[in-house]
């Protein structure tokens, strides 16, 4: 790890000020992606702005028909939240299956969404549930936010403060975890709100999380895993690596999608 100067702001405004004033500054949330990257010297910020003491970025609240989660809320807190468990149980379950208990005690939803790892879990939920990413400058729809592998709509100096999930009628996430890392080899989130069905796939796409239009169309007709019989994901554009080739990932997308629909309807 290269040397850096450490800052500990207590408000979003102070954090934003530090980001714009200090050269080569990076936000530190849970640090469970950033610190390993800094150890490998793949990142070497001159200034680290720790959000750990920014109280206004933590917490979970129900706002009408939406659940709003502060960016600095840990995976463990989302998983254990009675509000999330009641309003969007599939989201609580997703958070409870990220990595391992230690990772869940430190990693945050804001860090995960900002990082947009192609194998991360939260991006699939944001996209399928039509979440809104709220920053210190604006509100961004999930459809516009995730722009490719490790790439998002965030601009220089922009801070995610909260993420708002409209409550789906039915939703669930299923992942086939990489047995070593627990990241998604393939993860599928399905959400039905009114007559709209959205299906988002993570872990598989060569350019990160994506929506699976064929499955959405089939499920919009009838929200049942049977509707996906014969609907096959295409292997073109999927990741191939030592863990799984593109054909196998394409197959797993179908399996995870059917399981997610079954879970969403309570089968």
């Amino acid at each position, binding site marked *: 790890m290269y040397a850096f100067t*450490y800052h500990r702001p207590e408000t979003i405004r102070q954090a934003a000020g530090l980001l714009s004033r200090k050269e080569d500054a990076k936000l530190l949330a849970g*640090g469970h992606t950033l610190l390993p990257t800094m150890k490998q010297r793949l990142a070497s910020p001159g200034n*680290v702005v*720790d959000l*750990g003491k920014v109280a206004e970025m933590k917490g979970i609240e129900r706002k009408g028909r939406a659940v709003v989660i502060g960016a600095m809320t840990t995976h463990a807190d989302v998983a254990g939240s009675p509000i999330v468990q009641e309003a969007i149980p599939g989201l609580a379950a997703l958070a409870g299956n990220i990595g391992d208990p230690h*990772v869940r005690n*430190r990693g945050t939803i804001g860090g995960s969404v900002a990082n947009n790892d192609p194998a991360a879990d939260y991006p699939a939920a944001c996209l399928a549930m039509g979440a809104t990413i709220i920053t210190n400058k604006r509100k961004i729809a999930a459809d516009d936010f995730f722009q490719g592998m490790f790439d998002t709509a965030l601009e220089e100096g922009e801070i995610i403060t909260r993420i708002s999930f409209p409550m789906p009628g039915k939703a669930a996430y299923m992942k086939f975890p990489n047995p070593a890392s*627990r990241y998604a080899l393939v993860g599928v989130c399905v959400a039905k709100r009114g007559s709209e069905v959205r299906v988002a796939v993570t872990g598989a796409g060569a350019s990160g999380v994506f929506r699976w239009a064929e499955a959405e169309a089939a499920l919009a007709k009838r929200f049942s895993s049977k509707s996906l019989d014969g609907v096959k994901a295409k292997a073109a554009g999927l990741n191939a690596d030592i863990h799984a080739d593109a054909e196998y990932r394409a197959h797993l997308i179908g399996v995870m999608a059917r399981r997610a629909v079954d879970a969403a309807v309570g089968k």
Partner: protein
Amino acid sequence: MAAVSMTVNGHSVTADIDPRTLLVQFIRDNQRLTGTHVGCDTSQCGACVVHVDGKAVKSCTLLALQCDGSNVTTIEGLAAGGVLHPMQEAFREHHGLQCGFCTPGMIMSAVDIVNRKGNNLDEHTIREELEGNICRCTGYHNIVKAVEAGAKAMAGSSMKRAAE
């Protein structure tokens, strides 16, 4: 350099450190508490698990500065007055270790599981919850037995919350 203060096993400590100092380095090199191990340094193995404000974390993936003002408990903070913590005793009794390298992290994780999930743990729960702890020796069988027995023993012990 930057100033950091925290409580480690009940003692308040203050130091001037390089901001790069990881919590595990602070514990081992600065505090000379070498029970907390570094197995991988890449957040995978769990040999470095300690409790920060009552929660189990991988201390190799945390800056000491992120723990300013926190309450840290390491494996050395479990035993009291020369008496082993019930979870430590259970690992000894059930031969839950061979080389012992993973053991401090296993025990700190195990105590955390009990704090969250209670004293009656089934095998499936224990294995799921030990997801973040790797052992290269035992094959886990006796670790799982030790955690199950230690969890039960903690019910009747005054040391159950890991000295937090």
